[in-house]
């Protein structure tokens, strides 16, 4: 029950005879029965709605397919590596797409983090004018994908403010066609958003003492920042980077709408295998690969957090 502690372990020394199975079940039931009941909806739900489909996805990656009624493909239970082989075949588009996806995620994450460093540092150490506003604004992307889509569409439209600014500054003669090219997505991914908050907490963890010490030793602000602050915050920064890449790899809606259905991101390629190609096995295989990539970066992230505090 709620807070009542139960027997930690049935201690063989304390009882005269080994505990019979029925009684052992009774004890288990008394101790964990309520907990099991509380957790079962969640476990059931995640099992049926997440674990099972994912397992099937992995399995489907190994299926092949056959023509059904002449026009429709349907998957055939099989064990073939042809999907994965195709995925990694340099002559097909997929490996290119994978490289592009990971590359963009990495590049934009690195850029985003670099750009967020000054702001994050500022927020970590000082009380800037408009602090609450600034902090609030970095939470805005949470508003939802549709909102972001529209906002970007308008911001980067040929007649929109970005082009207006660039032309006004004389940098370009004609409006740049952002929408429809990968440029808009890349730019958006490079803008520091949540990464600012992540980096800030990494920087907050660096004791000011070290910076002050460096300054008393004669280092100026830049030197201190470069040689003292950053190295000490390295773990947090690496963590933010890896987390950012891990989630950047799975981007889907933005490229779909702002670049067009035939963009080079892997998420979209996966979707296209389903619609219009109905190639579930291929889609599944690619899905597995994309997930694996994301998980690898996540694992690396967890590794950087090791040796620190518990999760």
């Amino acid at each position, binding site marked *: *029950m*709620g*807070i009542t502690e139960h027997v930690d372990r049935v201690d063989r020394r304390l009882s005269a005879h080994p505990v019979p199975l029925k009684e052992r079940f009774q004890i288990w039931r008394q101790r964990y029965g*309520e907990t099991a009941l*509380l*957790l079962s*909806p*969640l476990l059931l*739900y*995640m099992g049926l709605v*997440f674990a099972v*489909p*994912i397992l*099937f*996805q992995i399995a*489907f990656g190994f299926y092949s397919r056959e023509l059904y009624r002449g026009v429709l493909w349907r998957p055939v239970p099989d064990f073939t590596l042809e999907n994965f082989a195709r995925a990694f075949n340099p002559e097909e588009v997929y490996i290119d797409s994978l490289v592009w996806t990971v590359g963009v995620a990495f590049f934009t994450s690195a850029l985003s983090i670099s750009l967020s460093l*000054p*702001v994050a540092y*500022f927020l970590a*150490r000082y009380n*800037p*004018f*408009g602090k609450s*506003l*600034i902090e609030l*604004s*970095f939470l805005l992307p949470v508003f*939802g*994908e*549709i*909102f972001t*889509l*529209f*906002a970007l569409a*308008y*911001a980067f*439209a040929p*007649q*929109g*403010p970005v*082009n*207006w600014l660039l032309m006004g500054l004389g940098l370009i003669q004609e409006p740049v066609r952002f929408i429809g090219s990968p440029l808009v997505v890349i730019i958006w991914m490079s*803008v*520091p958003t949540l990464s600012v908050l992540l980096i800030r907490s990494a920087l907050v963890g660096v004791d000011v003492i070290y*910076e*002050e010490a460096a*300054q008393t030793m004669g280092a100026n*602000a830049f030197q201190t920042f470069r040689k003292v602050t950053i190295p000490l915050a390295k773990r947090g920064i690496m963590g933010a980077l890896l987390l950012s890449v891990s989630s950047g790899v*799975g981007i889907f*809606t933005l490229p779909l709408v702002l670049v067009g259905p035939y963009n080079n991101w892997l998420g979209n390629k*996966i*979707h296209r295998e*389903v619609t219009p190609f109905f190639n*579930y096995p291929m889609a*599944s295989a690619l899905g597995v690969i*994309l*997930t694996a990539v*994301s*998980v690898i970066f996540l694992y690396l992230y967890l590794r950087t957090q090791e040796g620190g505090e518990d*999760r």
Partner: protein
Amino acid sequence: MRLPRYIMVILNIYALMLAGIMIWPVIQMMLTSVTSDVVFPPRNFSLAAFERVLWDGFFKSMGVSLQLGLWSTLLLIAICLPAAYALERKRFPGRSLLGAVIFVPNIFPSITYVIAIGVYVAIYFIGLRGEFPIIVVATAMGAIPLVVRTIQGSLATTDEVYEEAALVMGANPLRTFFKITLPLIAPGVITAATIAFTFSATNFLAPWILGAKEPPVAVYIYRDVERLGFTPQLAVQVLVMEFIILGIIQALYLIFRKQFRGVFA
């Protein structure tokens, strides 16, 4: 560390600029909705776009969104509330493992697991494809980690002593939960419900990929964007959508504030 004043000013400006970049789209959206075309600087102010909003289809899909939000939230609370309670108040083998496992749906790129669900349904439940219950169930998955974590946080900051006192006073665990625990964690539960509702009502990925037969508003708008591009009318629709949803949340919040007097600081 001590920074020269000019650097502080530059940093401050930089920070405000970035904040501005974040906030600008909201303003832009609002500006666009009151113009008749998409230009910067804005011109041709007119409210023409608002007239067209009264498209049947829009409000119908808005209704679907709200229902999606509602059912999804109910499902999430029903699942996550007991689970959060178990995770926070009880000890059992595998407790920290389970705590980590819950976050897995957020770790997977959402596109892959939504497609996995879609493929799974398409193959084994072909008859149910696009049906509302499937959409609800699939949409809710994405919010599980956040809802669990929010409720768990609320439990963590509520002293267990109240529950112990109730037990000794003669209340069985169920009664203790509904009479004592729940009122005390109500703020956290309401916050979690709010998050769940917003996430589900505005969700695009799951309903779209799974081919929702009754599209929620996010899908509806997307389809219009495909057809018409980013017109001001659609900007209006997006704003109206956000407005309605936020409005509902605020209203519910105000209602519940009165219910739980003495608990909110």
